[in-house]
C-alpha cells in the first residue's frame, strides 16, 4: 500500500491531541502580531497518525531488522536498557538551568562519562559538548587554533589531511580558517611518513588523521608521525570515527595524539536514529586542555558544578552549542559503558576486529582485498573482481538489498577504485556473518557468470526501486505544496 503524505490526508477539525479550552485570547499582550494566515497544517486523529508513522517505519531498514556491513559507521546493536534509563523522569525531565543543588545526579552522569572517556583514552581532558563527530572535529581544531593564537603561532594556517580522509575533515579545517593540504598514502595504505615530513613546516597548524584509517588499517608509524608533527610545532588531531577498533586495546594518549573526537553514537552504541542525534566529546592533551570550550563539570565544595565562563588558568575558546551537551545521548552511552565494563569494552574491540578479519579471510578469494595483512575493524575491497562483468560496485551493493542486507559503504575511501568497505562490528554473530558471506560469494559468482542485467535491475523487492537522484537535484522538490 502506498503511504500518502500527511498533507494529503486528514480533514480540517480532526484532532489527535485534546486540549482544554484556552478561553478568549488576550490581544493586549500580543504585540500586534497575532497570526493572520492559516498555517495549512493538516488535521488528523491519533489512529491515522500512529498508522502513518508505523507504515513509514516499515519502509526502513535498521540494525534491529538486519545486518549493516557499513564501513566507517559502526552500526552496532543499540541496547534497550539505554533507552529505558534515558527515560527515567529523574534524568529526562530536567531543565538545563535548574539550580545546581537540584541536578547533582545529572552532573554526575556527565562527570562519570567524562571520567570513562579520559580513562579509556588516557587523555587528561575532554570537551563534552560537541553534538556529533564533525562538531567534535571542529571543537578540536578550534582548540588547536586557540592554542596557536595564544602562543603567537597564529600564522600557522595549513592543515595536513590524507586523501583518504572523511569529507568532514577538510570542511572542518576550512571552518577554522585553515587551508587544506593533502598528504599521500603509501602502497600499504598508510600515510607516507617521508612525504608527511616534507609537507611539515612553520605554517602547518595541525595534522588531521583518522586512525585506524579509512582503509581499515592501523597507522603503524603513528608514533613517528606524532613525533614529526610535534617536532614541527603542529598539533596532531585524530578523527575518532574508528575508535571502536581499539577501545581497551590501545590508549590514544600513548600514540601522541593531541585531540580526538569520540562518536558516542558509534563506539558507545547510542542509536543513529536515521541520522542523529549523535554526540562527539573531544579528548584533549594537556597542551590543549586550557582551551576547552565551556561548559564543563567540576567538583567543588558544594558538590558538582558547571563552569560556564572563564576561570583562573583556563582560556576557553568559547561555546559550541546551547546548554550542556547531548545529555540524553550521554545517559545512553554511560549505560552502555557501565554494562560492558573494561573487560567488555576490550572484548568488543577484539571481536570487532576478529569479525572484520573473518570477513576478509572468507571473502578474500572472490572479492579483491585492497591491502595485504590483517585489517582492523573493517575490511576493504576494490572493484577489480568486477572487471569486465559490466557490474559496478553500486550494482553489487543494490543487489545485496534484495538479499535482505543494507549495502556496504561504496566508493569510499576515495583512494581505492570502486571501494567496498565493510565493518561488521562485534554485535554480529558468526552465524550472521556466515550467511552474509554466502550471499556475497553467491553474488560475486553470479556477477562473474554474466548477469549484469540482473544487477542493474536491483533492487526489486523494496518499497521503491532505484531512485533518480539526478532528477531530484536538477529540479529540487524539497517540500510538499498544495
Amino acid at each position, binding site marked *: 500500500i502506498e503511504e500518502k503524505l500527511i498533507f494529503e490526508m486528514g480533514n480540517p477539525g480532526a484532532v*489527535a491531541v485534546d486540549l482544554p479550552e484556552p478561553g478568549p485570547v488576550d490581544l493586549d499582550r500580543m504585540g500586534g502580531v497575532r497570526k493572520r494566515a492559516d498555517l495549512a497544517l493538516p488535521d*488528523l486523529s491519533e489512529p491515522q497518525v500512529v498508522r502513518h508513522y508505523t507504515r513509514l517505519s516499515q519502509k526502513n531498514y535498521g540494525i*534491529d531488522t538486519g545486518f549493516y556491513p557499513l564501513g566507517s559507521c559502526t552500526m552496532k546493536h543499540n541496547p534497550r536498557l539505554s533507552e529505558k534509563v534515558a527515560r527515567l523522569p529523574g534524568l529526562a525531565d530536567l531543565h538545563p538551568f535548574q539550580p545546581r543543588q537540584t541536578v547533582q*545526579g545529572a552532573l554526575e552522569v556527565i562527570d562519570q562519562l567524562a571520567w570513562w572517556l579520559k580513562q579509556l583514552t588516557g587523555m587528561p581532558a575532554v570537551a563534552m559538548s560537541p553534538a556529533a563527530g564533525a562538531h567534535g572535529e571542529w571543537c578540536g581544531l578550534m582548540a588547536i587554533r586557540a592554542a596557536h593564537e595564544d602562543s603567537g603561532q597564529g600564522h600557522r594556517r595549513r592543515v595536513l589531511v590524507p586523501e583518504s580522509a572523511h569529507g568532514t575533515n577538510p570542511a572542518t579545517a576550512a571552518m577554522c580558517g585553515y587551508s587544506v593540504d593533502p598528504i599521500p598514502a603509501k602502497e600499504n595504505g598508510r600515510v607516507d611518513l617521508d612525504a608527511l615530513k616534507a609537507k611539515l613546516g612553520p605554517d602547518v597548524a595541525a595534522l588531521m588523521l583518522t586512525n585506524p584509517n579509512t582503509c581499515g588499517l592501523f597507522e603503524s608509524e603513528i608514533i613517528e608521525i606524532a613525533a614529526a608533527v610535534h617536532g614541527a610545532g603542529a598539533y596532531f588531531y585524530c578523527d575518532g570515527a574508528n575508535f571502536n577498533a581499539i577501545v581497551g586495546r*590501545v590508549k590514544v594518549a600513548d600514540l601522541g595524539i593531541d585531540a580526538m573526537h569520540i562518536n558516542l553514537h558509534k563506539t558507545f552504541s547510542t542509536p543513529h536514529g536515521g*541520522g*542523529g542525534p549523535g554526540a562527539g566529546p573531544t579528548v584533549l592533551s594537556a597542551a590543549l586542555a586550557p582551551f576547552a570550550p565551556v561548559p564543563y563539570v567540576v567538583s567543588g565544595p558544594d558538590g558538582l558544578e558547571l563552569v560556564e565562563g572563564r576561570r583562573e588558568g583556563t582560556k576557553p575558546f568559547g561555546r559550541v552549542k546551547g546548554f550542556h551537551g547531548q545529555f540524553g545521548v550521554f545517559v545512553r552511552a554511560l549505560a552502555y559503558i557501565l554494562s560492558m565494563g573494561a573487560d567488555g569494552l576490550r572484548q568488543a574491540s577484539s571481536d570487532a576486529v576478529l569479525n572484520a578479519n573473518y570477513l576478509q579471510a572468507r571473502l578474500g578469494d572472490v572479492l579483491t582485498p585492497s591491502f595485504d595483512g590483517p585489517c582492523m575493524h573493517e575490511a576493504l575491497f576494490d572493484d577489480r573482481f568486477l572487471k569486465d562483468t559490466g557490474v559496478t560496485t553500486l550494482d553489487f551493493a543494490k543487489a545485496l538489498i534484495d538479499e535482505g542486507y543494507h549495502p556496504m559503504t561504496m566508493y569510499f575511501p576515495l583512494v581505492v577504485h570502486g571501494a567496498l568497505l565493510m565493518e561488521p562490528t562485534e554485535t554480529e554473530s558468526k552465524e550472521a556473518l556466515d550467511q552474509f558471506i554466502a550471499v556475497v560469494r553467491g553474488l560475486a559468482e553470479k556477477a562473474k557468470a554474466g548477469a549484469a542485467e540482473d544487477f542493474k535491475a536491483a533492487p526489486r523487492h523494496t518499497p521503491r526501486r532505484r531512485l533518480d537522484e539526478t532528477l531530484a537535484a536538477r529540479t529540487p522538490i524539497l517540500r510538499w505544496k498544495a
Partner: protein
Amino acid sequence: MRYLPLTESDRAAMLADIGVKDVDALFRDVPAAARLAEALPLPRHQGELEVERAFTRMAGKNLSAGCAPFFMGAGVYRHHIPAAVDQLLLRGEFLTAYTPYQPEVSQGTLQALFEFQTQVAMVTGMEVANASMYDGATACAEAAIMACRVTKRRKVLLSGSLHPHYVETTETSLRFTEMEAEPLPPDPLGLEDLLGRLDGDTACVVVQNPGFFGGIRDLRPLAAICHELGALLVVMVAEPTSLGLFDSPGAMGADIVVAEGQSLGMGMNFGGPGLGLFATRDKFVRQMPGRLAGQTLDVDGKRGWVLTLSTREQHIRREKATSNICTNSGLCALAFSIHLTLLGGTGFTRLAELNHAKAVQLEQKLSQVKGLRVLPDSYYNEFAVHLGDEVKAAEVVDRLVDKGILAGVPASRFYPTWPELAPVLIVAATEMNTEDDMDRLVAALKETLS
C-alpha cells in the same frame, strides 16, 4: 556480556579460518609500545539490574520537573508530549536506522524528513527548510555564516533579544574567520535601536522573537530596512509553539528563520539533544547548510524520496562545503514532526492560545506580589519580571527550591557582570501549569520577598 554474540568456540573457529593464533596477532600493526596487554583496571561489566540501579540512584539526586511547580523556560520548555510520539520513536526501524543514504531501504525516514521540511517551512512561513541542525544555537550560527556567504559581507549584528547561548555560539563560530559578530547588550525592555546599527557592511541582523526576555515585536519595519540595505534578516525562534499564535517570521519578512525545536516532541533532557530548525527562501537553497530530502521518481515512475543537493555538503564538496555538518538530529526531527502531525493545524493553534492564556493568568497572579513588575508588555508564554531593586533573583530561586518550587531562570546566570539584571527572573507558563502551581509560586514569592 550480553551484547556480544561470539562464544569462545566461535572465536577459535574464526581465528583458525583467518589463520592466526590469537586475536593479538590481528593487532600486530599497533606499535608494541602502545598495545595494552590486558583490560584496563576499571570496573568490569555489569548486568541490567546493577546498571539500572546506578542510574536510579543518580536520577534520585535530581529534582525532576514533574515533582515541583515548574516555571522555567529561557530556551527549553516543558510541554506535554503525547504518548504516541515516544512509542513510535522507539520502533527499531526508526531508532536503529542509519542516515538514509540508501534510499531504497530508507523511504520511511526520507518521507518523514520531507514532511518535516514541509512542516517547518509552513510554520516559519518560509519556502524551504532543511532536515535539521544540531540545535537552535548552532542553527543560529550557521544562519549568520550563510548570510555572510549570500551577501558576501562580513558583519553580523546580534540583537540583545537573542538568547545568550546563541550569541556565544555564534561568536565562537565566527572566531578565526573573516566574519565578525557584533553582539548588542541585553535588552529586557525591548528598547534597542537595531536600525541605527545597520550599514552597508551588515550581512545580517539576528533577532529573536519572542525575545529572550519574553517580548514580542513586529519585525516588518526591521525587515524593510534590512532589505533596503541589502542585509538579510535572520529570525530566531526559541519557542516554536509560539508560531501557532503570531505572524510567522516569513510573513514579517525574514530571509532565514532558525529555531530550537525542542518544544515539540522532545523532553527537556537537561538541555540536550536539541533540534535546530533552519528555513529560508528558495533562492538561497544552494547556499543553505545541512541535509535535504527531496522528491523524485524511481525507475518504475513511482514517487519517492532521496537525499539531494548533496554537492553543497562536505562528503562531496569537502573544504568548499556550506558546513561540515554530517550527523544531525534526525530522530529529534521525527519527534518534532510526529508531535506536530498529532497537533495538526487546529491543535497547534490551540496549544499556542493555551500557553498564552496561561502566561496571562500568571501575570495577573504575579501582580499580587508587591514590588514585582513584569517587564515586557507583550509576550507569548514567558516574560522577565523585576523582583525589586535590592533583590537578587538567583537567591530567590534558591530559597524557592527549598520550598519545592522551580521558580524560573535568573538573568544573572547569563549576565553575571550586569548588576541591573540581578533582580530579573525569567518565568514561563505552559499548558503543564495548573492554577494551583501558580498560587503556590505567588505565595512563596510573597513570603520570600516580604
